[in-house]
């Protein structure tokens, strides 16, 4: 089973690279941020796979820190998006994130 892990890691990295298109294209800030969050999750899995392949338990700590700080990035983004939207925020033409009434 372990022989398959590098292949899975490669596929996940490929997934990240494909997801980079969302970072480039947007079109809204939320698309970019969600793509970044997806990368965070994929990176946790890649690091865990590497930990098992190389039999290096200290990599599990790296995955733990990744997972914790991905939460920080999403909370930063959410509180930024929900506070009064700065007028010059990114990307025309789509309205930015949900502007709830």
């Amino acid at each position, binding site marked *: 089973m372990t*022989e398959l892990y*590098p*292949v899975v*890691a*490669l596929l996940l*990295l*490929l997934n*990240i*690279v494909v997801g*980079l298109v969302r*970072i*480039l294209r*947007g079109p809204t*800030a939320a698309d*970019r*941020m969600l*793509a*970044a969050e997806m*990368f*965070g999750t994929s*990176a946790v899995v*890649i*690091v865990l796979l*590497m930990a098992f392949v*190389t039999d*290096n338990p*200290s*990599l599990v*700590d*790296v995955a*733990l*820190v*990744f997972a*914790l*700080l*991905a*939460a*920080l*990035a999403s*909370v*930063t*983004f*959410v*509180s*930024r998006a*929900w*506070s*009064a939207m*700065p*007028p*010059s*925020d*990114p*990307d025309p033409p789509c309205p930015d994130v949900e502007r*709830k009434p």
Partner: protein
Amino acid sequence: MALVVLAFDLLLAAALIWLAWQATRAADLFHAVVSFIVFGLLMALAWVRLEAPDVALAEAAIGAGATGALLLSALDRLARRPRRHAPLYEPGTAWGFWLPAGSALLAMLTLAAWNLPAPGLGNEILASLSASGVEHAVTAVLLNFRALDTLLEIGVLLLAAVVIWALGQAPPPLVPSMPSPALPALGRLLFPIFVLVAAYLLWRGSHGPGGAFPAGAVFGAGGILMLLAGARPWIRSSEHGPWRLILSLGMAVLLAAGVAGTLSGQDFFQYPKGTAASFILVLEVAAGLSIALLIFALYLRGKPREHGSWGAAE
């Protein structure tokens, strides 16, 4: 299998270069910041591939985590600026400059890497590891063999915090215009885990990847999370007494440890025989606390208010 690993490495390197390009060249600042956050994430993966889990840990905690939050929040300060449609540089001049400059830098780096002493200092460090007081080589280098470097690094962070305090009062932190019950709940749920992981990383530093820098960064990031979740800086007193104490604690304790060696007739930062382990433990805890509050202070973007709440002052 080797082919798969090679493909992984090549893909990782290509994505890193592309993200670095995006982070520096994107006309839209939000786009650049998100590229930078993802760059930090993939950079940590690259450090894992290079078998440097210590650096990967620091990069994951500081590069992808704390810096991302810092940059995203800093964007709001720039929000009133008019939008730029044109790219930052003219395409023609950019190529005329970056192509030769990039090639020259690459050539110099290759030359430098070529001339590195072949085995490095790894064997010397492993040989004297038993005398260092810890079992992990990186911690031994950071807090024993090259403790002076750590002193200077914390000095740089402290200097940054001093400069930020000199800019004036901290602006009120972002408050979501639509209050969400999820944020405070998430803060309450996650902050204890941040503290636990920080303590774990600090303890882990004595025998594996971890130590004061990642622990401090995770603890500081927990503070930022609480701030975003609606908590307000809880350390309040006149003249910022506790703030000043904790911010300078790491620097002061490291300096004291260094001078203690000089005063007892030995070299600067030479710990008395047999006491290195206790010295390193005290230094780790002091430096970790300082780094946590320093990162939090950087995020506040100014001197915290002495009394009262942000809401009342506004």
